[in-house]
């Protein structure tokens, strides 16, 4: 072999391989289907379910991959509709809602059984929920059930507080605006002793550190450093408060969980030295905050003391707010960027209500007026879940939550078998021990390889279950699953599985490729607390300069999004939103045309930015904005192919339309999360949200209260009030209208830059029927079957949601009959709230 022939050989080998691939893809693209397509001989579905399930205990894992598997193995009160994901009857054959929307009574079917043949009763649901919320299980999903009365208190190990006379303190005395203080006006189902307790006005609960309460404070090393930090760090009371409210670690955790509250707990258990230490610590806080000393709470009853204190805090709050407002004006008038920044730094954050409660108790303890205050730990038995009889279950919420039924099909609420769990403890999910409640039972569990479930003859709906087995493959390598799909080794994949670059090829297979809107959005958060994105004009300019149509064309699978709640799935909400936005525009004197332009209006963006003090000037054939502080903004995103692509697209848009080159910063996922969580990024950060249930509230809730989950630092009491009001509204359409108003308010402030509604983006073989591209890609497996007759295979799946499948429709009709019959037999008065089925 000569020297140069090496290179040549290498190139020719490459060319041969290249031609092989080209020929192989063209040959398959000419076929009607993507790769090999044959109905398997056995009645078995092979499904790629996503990454390895974290646990088979339905109350433990949080991800969708687990949800898909657990939905097969466990049944709950309700099930997801295979197309819309609205709740449909499962173990509860019918249900009723109280007229104020705080109580639900479920009538369970009598033939529901666990996989070992034991009957499923209301007591099993009570057990399931109490276990789910127990602090010992430490379930990450527990927040889903926080709407159930006292469940949050139980999960957080909180305590009821009794006053001097032995009466329990009532929450609304301390926090009049918190809502949920009223006694439940309307009730349904039989009355009982428990019911008397649960429907009474909500008691005050204080977070007490039940784990360390037993130890005396003296012996608690963790509190000692706290006292040390306090004196030095509390120079600035607003910093202190924001630390308490925003922080998740260090001082603030100690403050929140231990000091603010364990102190009250200490009343009962501490010895004299410990108390003295405490009082010293408190003295430091109170002296620093200069709020107390003058006022004396001694001799007042607790409620009087509380009111007095609340008044004091509110006055303080007002002072801060006024000062902030003044500063705002000064900022607007400021001439230089430095001046602006300096002034922005001066702004103080108002004290929050969350803190009041603790302060009241601290103050009370400090002044000695309730030094002997007894505390009672909230137990699982106190939660608003009651088995009225074996087949009637009552759930009481602390405030109306019209989306509550929509939450119930979630795996977190699916029923588990008490005896198995108590016998086998943490080993109960092992294949030899597990007892399940769903249409399928576990037969093989080989982690990272496969998980096989088999039709359970004991299931109440077994006659309607069509598949014999489902094989779940826990895979997340996209290329690998595409290969398996092409080789007919899997029949369907989960969502977002077609690799971006493959999309052009795959979407040509019209009978297989599913891309429908999802109940998930993608957006960029603005840091509204840091210069320069604290200026709404700058936020608006940045948002206006993005061609979202171009973005979704580029991303191929997503749809452009201009509002925050995803479009095209919650159709009733979309209607309400259209109506309300039109009204709001009129009220705000914005022309519909201008509003329509907010989707993309580079000129307007430049104008606004100029108004904000950063003139955009023509520079040859492009734009430039020389005064903009580019070093103060960046786009932070977690490392991923698609995030990178989006960020680069955004970067080029801003460059092109505003003349600003925003730097990009990528971080590994686990590093990125804490940065975004404490709103520690500069300018913008990438974010996305997958709805927990089919209701706009799951999205708007992100901006509720302060601190909230939006990672923007934005907060508006008006917005909170609107959400509270909406949830008290019984009429669903009116409720949506209030929510839409809230969304409008938020959007006008532009704390986020909505980008796109996610889309399902997955493929299935045409012979898999009864499987729909629903907004969460969560399939009720009992509706799915394999069609052997090619003439009945799914075609043009773009329209799949509109096509009626007789088999599925019949099954749905049967299921829904019980609830329809129940409503028909009911007095008309209590009807409206239960009308979720249409």
């Amino acid at each position, binding site marked *: *072999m000569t020297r140069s022939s090496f290179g040549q050989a290498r190139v020719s080998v490459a060319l041969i391989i290249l031609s092989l691939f080209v020929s192989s893809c063209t040959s398959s693209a000419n076929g009607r289907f993507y790769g090999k397509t044959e109905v398997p001989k056995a009645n078995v579905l092979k499904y790629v379910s996503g990454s390895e399930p974290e646990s088979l205990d339905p109350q433990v894992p949080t991800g969708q991959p687990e949800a898909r598997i657990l939905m097969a193995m466990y049944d709950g009160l309700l099930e997801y509709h295979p197309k819309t994901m609205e709740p449909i009857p499962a173990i509860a054959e019918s249900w009723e809602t109280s007229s104020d929307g705080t109580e639900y009574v479920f009538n369970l079917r009598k033939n529901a059984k666990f996989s070992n043949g034991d009957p499923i009763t209301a007591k099993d649901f009570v057990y399931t929920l109490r276990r789910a919320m127990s*602090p010992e299980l430490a379930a990450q999903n527990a927040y889903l059930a926080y709407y159930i009365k006292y469940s949050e208190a139980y999960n957080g190990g*909180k305590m009821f507080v009794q006053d001097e006379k032995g009466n329990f303190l009532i929450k609304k005395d301390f926090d009049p605006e918190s809502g949920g203080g009223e006694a439940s006006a309307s009730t349904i189902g039989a009355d009982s002793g428990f019911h008397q307790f649960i429907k009474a006005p909500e008691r005050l609960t204080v977070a007490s550190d039940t784990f360390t309460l037993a130890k005396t404070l003296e012996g608690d090393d963790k509190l000692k450093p706290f006292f040390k930090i306090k004196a030095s760090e509390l120079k600035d009371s607003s910093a202190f408060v924001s630390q308490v409210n925003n922080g998740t670690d260090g001082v603030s955790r100690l403050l929140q969980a231990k000091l603010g509250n364990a102190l009250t707990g200490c009343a009962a258990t501490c010895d004299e030295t410990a108390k003295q230490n405490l009082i010293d610590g408190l003295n430091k806080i109170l002296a620093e905050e200069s709020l107390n000393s003058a006022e004396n709470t001694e001799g007042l009853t607790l409620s009087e003391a509380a009111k007095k204190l609340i008044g004091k805090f509110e006055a303080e709050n007002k002072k801060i707010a006024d000062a902030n407002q003044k500063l705002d004006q000064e900022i607007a008038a400021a001439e230089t960027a430095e001046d602006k920044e300096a002034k922005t730094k001066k702004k103080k954050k108002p004290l929050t209500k969350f803190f009041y409660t603790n302060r009241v108790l601290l103050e009370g303890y400090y002044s000695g007026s309730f030094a002997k205050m007894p505390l009672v730990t909230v137990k699982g038995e106190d939660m608003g879940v009651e088995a009225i009889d074996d087949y009637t279950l009552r759930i009481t919420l602390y405030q109306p939550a019209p989306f509550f039924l929509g939450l119930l099909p979630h795996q977190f609420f699916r029923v588990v078998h008490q005896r198995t769990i108590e016998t086998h403890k943490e080993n109960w999910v*092992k294949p030899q021990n597990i007892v399940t409640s769903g249409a399928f039972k576990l037969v093989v569990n080989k982690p990272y390889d496969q998980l096989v479930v088999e039709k359970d003859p004991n299931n109440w709906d077994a006659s309607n279950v069509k598949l014999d087995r489902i094989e779940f493959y826990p895979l997340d390598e996209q290329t690998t699953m595409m290969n398996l799909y092409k*080789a007919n080794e899997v029949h369907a994949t989960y969502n977002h599985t077609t690799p971006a670059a493959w999309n052009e090829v795959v979407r040509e297979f019209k009978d297989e490729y599913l891309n429908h809107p999802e109940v998930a959005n993608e957006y960029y958060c603005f840091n509204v607390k840091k210069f320069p994105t604290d200026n709404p004009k700058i936020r608006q300019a940045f948002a206006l300069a993005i061609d979202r149509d171009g973005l979704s064309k580029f991303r191929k699978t997503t749809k452009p999004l201009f509002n925050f709640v995803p479009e095209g799935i919650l159709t009733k909400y979309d209607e309400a939103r259209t109506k309300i936005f039109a009204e709001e525009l009129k009220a705000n004197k914005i022309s519909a045309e201008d509003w329509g332009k907010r989707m993309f209006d580079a000129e307007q963006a430049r104008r606004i930015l100029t108004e904000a003090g950063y003139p955009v000037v023509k520079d040859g054939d492009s734009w430039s904005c020389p005064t903009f502080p580019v070093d103060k903004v960046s786009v932070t995103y977690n490392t991923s192919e698609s995030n990178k692509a989006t960020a680069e697209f955004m970067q080029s848009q801003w460059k092109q339309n505003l003349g600003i080159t925003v730097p990009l910063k990528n971080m590994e996922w686990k*590093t990125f999360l*804490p940065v975004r969580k404490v709103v520690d990024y500069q300018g913008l950060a990438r974010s996305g949200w997958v709805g927990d249930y089919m209701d706009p509230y799951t999205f708007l809730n992100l901006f509720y209260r302060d601190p909230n989950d939006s990672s923007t630092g934005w907060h508006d009491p008006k917005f909170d009030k609107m959400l509270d009001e909406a949830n008290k509204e019984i009429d669903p359409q009116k409720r949506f209208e209030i929510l839409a108003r809230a969304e409008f308010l938020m959007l006008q402030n532009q704390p986020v830059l909505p980008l796109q509604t996610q889309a399902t983006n997955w493929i299935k073989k045409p012979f898999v029927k009864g499987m729909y591209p629903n907004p969460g890609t969560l399939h009720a497996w009992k509706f799915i079957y394999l069609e052997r007759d090619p003439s009945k295979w799914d075609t043009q799946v773009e329209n799949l949601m509109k096509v009626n499948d007789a088999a599925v429709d019949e099954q749905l009709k049967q299921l829904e009959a019980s609830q329809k019959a129940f409503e028909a037999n009911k007095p008309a008065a209590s009807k409206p709230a239960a009308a979720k089925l249409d």
Partner: protein
Amino acid sequence: MFSFIIRRLLIIFPMVLLVVSVTWGLIRMAPGNFYSGEKKLPAAIEENIKEKYGLNEPIYMQYLIMMGNVLRLDFGVSLKYTDRPVNQIIRDHFPYSATLGIFAYLLALVIGLSAGFIAALKQNTAADYASMSLAMLGQSVPNFVVGPILVIVFSLWLYIFPPARAGGFMNYVLPVITLSAIYAAYIARLTRAGMLEVLRSDYIRTARAKGLDEKTVLFRHALKGGLIPVVSFTGPALAALLAGTVVVERVFAIPGLGNIFIQSVLNRDEPLILGIVAFLSILIMAFNLIVDISYAFLDPRIRYE
């Protein structure tokens, strides 16, 4: 020899403890933790989790507890896969990696030895150049390229082997070939070099002069000497194989330990990371020891005091 083995065995334990301690320190320095996710946890839930996993203990206590677990060789339960003890995960998944690794190494030995042997005998001929160029090529193409190419040709185009997933013999063909390529190449080069050196040595000359027939010279005398570099390569090769399996496991969706390890690092799944690191270190050290002992049998010149 005996005391050498004992000394080497004794050093394994402090080494493992050191490796585990360093790894633990690195994990603790990393930002984020196993429960951080897209949805923020309410403070109460986070507190419950911290309490459950002992994260509220002082840091030195957490370290001591961890070391206690390591000494008992019980790493507790994975933080991510809460149903599964770490020891069981290792027990369940190591066999997949081991199967892959062993078969790949055997295949590499067969191919590498014969190619290297032939190349050495026919030095500077077309056969020599061809096999050495192939070997170089094997060492220049990453295995995450070889794997998918094999899949496309043999699974999606010819439909001979399944494209992925563990299972029967057919499932292992492509991954084993993929994994063995680079080792076959390396072994071929080592064998050739080793053989050339041996063939030029005095004792082979003596054997030939003695009038032994060529076959005996080559297979009884030369091959044994030529094997020594291959044997010494086995230690590092096994270490590298463990890394190599990561890629192959991912490309072919085989539930082996390598990929689980990568995932555990990304998940900050501390017990699982520590368990796998400790297990693999022990394994590699043990293999190195065996390699060193086998030297003594192959090469009479090597002695251990």
